[in-house]
């Protein structure tokens, strides 16, 4: 584990994402315009775990969509490291509709491999491995509607991991699960992050979660979204909610967020 952290520190020098003066405006069909993001400046290091907090509708999903290349910015500049390629190693766990309901769990997880033309046996083997990694053994043949909310999130994470991503974008992936499932999933994602050299950008509404997971917590303002503050969470992992340091971070972030509400 100490070896791993050293490796991570090394790769910190490489920049995964560089964003400057990024803005996004939506034009609705009724003619009104919504400024979703305004003047975002952000540099993400390789192997870094970034968590993003912000009120609903402040542009978090929009930010991830822009990074994933699913939308184009109106202004500014977004640069990805050369080793990051759309459809190859940038995985994205969506906020909604994360699995294809007409596919079994196994075939959902194997989707990316199937698209790459990998043989049926090989992708099955790989998908089974991933499913056991996220704790879904025995649900290979279940359809989406036969899975609980937490299981769907696990399956969606396995589906994303099948790409062998270097960059993993996650949009409130643990939004709809109970607290103990959430804690399980958090442990799981930290372990996966430790095992693989992945850069993660993780959107959440939960301050606790942001501090537990992130190397760095970004707080976005209300619409139009701007980065109002960032916090380097230099606490050792696994992190404990009950330490005074944790509480201090919590209070500071909470103040920043509620300052936004006034």
């Amino acid at each position, binding site marked *: 584990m100490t070896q791993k952290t050293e490796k991570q520190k090394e790769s910190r020098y490489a920049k995964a994402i560089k964003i400057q003066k990024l803005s996004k405006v939506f034009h609705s069909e009724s003619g009104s315009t919504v400024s979703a993001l305004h003047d975002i400046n952000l540099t993400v290091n390789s192997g870094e775990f970034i968590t993003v907090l912000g009120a609903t509708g402040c542009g978090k999903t929009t930010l991830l969509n822009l990074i*994933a290349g*699913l939308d184009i910015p109106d202004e500014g500049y977004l640069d990805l490291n050369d080793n990051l390629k*759309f*459809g*190859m190693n*940038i*995985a*994205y766990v*969506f906020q*909604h*509709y*994360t699995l*294809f*309901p*007409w*596919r079994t769990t196994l075939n959902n997880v194997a*989707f*990316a491999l*199937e*698209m*790459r033309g990998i043989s049926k046996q090989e992708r099955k083997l790989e998908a089974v491995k991933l499913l056991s990694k996220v*704790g879904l053994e025995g*649900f290979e043949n*279940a*359809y*989406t*509607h*036969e*899975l*609980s*909310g*937490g*299981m*769907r999130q696990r399956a969606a994470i396995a*589906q994303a991991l099948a*790409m062998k991503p270097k960059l993993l974008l996650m949009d409130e992936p643990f939004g709809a*699960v*109970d607290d*103990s*499932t959430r804690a*399980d999933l958090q442990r799981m994602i930290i372990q996966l992050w430790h095992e693989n050299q992945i850069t993660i950008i993780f959107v959440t509404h939960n301050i606790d979660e942001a501090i537990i997971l992130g190397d760095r917590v970004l707080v976005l303002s209300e619409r139009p979204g701007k980065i109002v503050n960032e916090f380097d969470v230099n606490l050792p992992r696994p992190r404990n909610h009950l330490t005074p340091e944790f509480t201090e971070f919590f209070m500071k972030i909470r103040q920043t967020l509620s300052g936004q509400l006034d």
Partner: protein
Amino acid sequence: MKQEEKKINSTDKKNSVTVILPAKHCQDGHAANFDWSKRIRSIVGIFVLLIIWQITAQYYDQPWIFPSVTRVLSQLAHPLREHYASGTLLSNTLISLLRVLLGFLFASIVGVTLGIVMGSISFIRDILEPVIELLRPLCPIAWLPFAIVIFKLKTLPQLFGINYSHTIFDQVQIGMIFVIFVGGFFPVLTNTLDGVASVRRNYLLLAKTLGASPVQIFYHVHLPAAMPMILTGLRQGLGLCWFVIIAAEMMTGSDSGIGYLLMYAADNSAMDIVIAAMLIIGAVGAMLSFLMRRVMFRFVGWKEKEI
């Protein structure tokens, strides 16, 4: 059923990590609670109707206007009896079915293909949609005189240069097929079109981020996502085809099919045959609908509980 589902859902939320009841289990549970008294109640209504029918028919004793149940049943019990050299109940039913299946097959192939093309290429959709909206409201039967003039009474074997094949296919006129095609084509087309065009954008984006090419997105997202709508279109289309063939066979110019036999028997005051033919038409229609439902469930069971 609704309540049962809810109950299962709420339990699986609590146990989200450990236990989940697979959907199969729910179905079995449902079958175990099979309600016999309900089944019997649903038969009682039909039984009473038959008894009233039988008593009334016997009371008036005018079988050429209102035949008794037993007379109709005896016709149904002898499906191979020749009627006025127009063939039997069975042979005419088979002729009608064959016509419908051929016309429907043709309508499905063209309808699904065109629906997929129009649903995914908006340029083609813009050109064809007005034409289709213009023709769609027209009752398929209205096409019959036109079809007869165009195709005369040409049969399917004649289309392939065989004048008389001495098979049931000699009863399959191109004009009939055309009218059935028109009947089945529009529901198949419009449903397919809607299905393909209204695929959730999220699924397209998901496939894209997972590395699918446009062609792969078409095969692995558009098509399966549209499958429930396509099958709905096919089911509606087949039902309509069966309506259309009966009506078409009742028109002048027709000389076979269950609709023809019904009309011919009516002209000869053989109401027992008329009612037997009606029952057959209803039963076949119900059977076709049932089969299509089974196919649908088999292929798009996932749709039932889409999240």
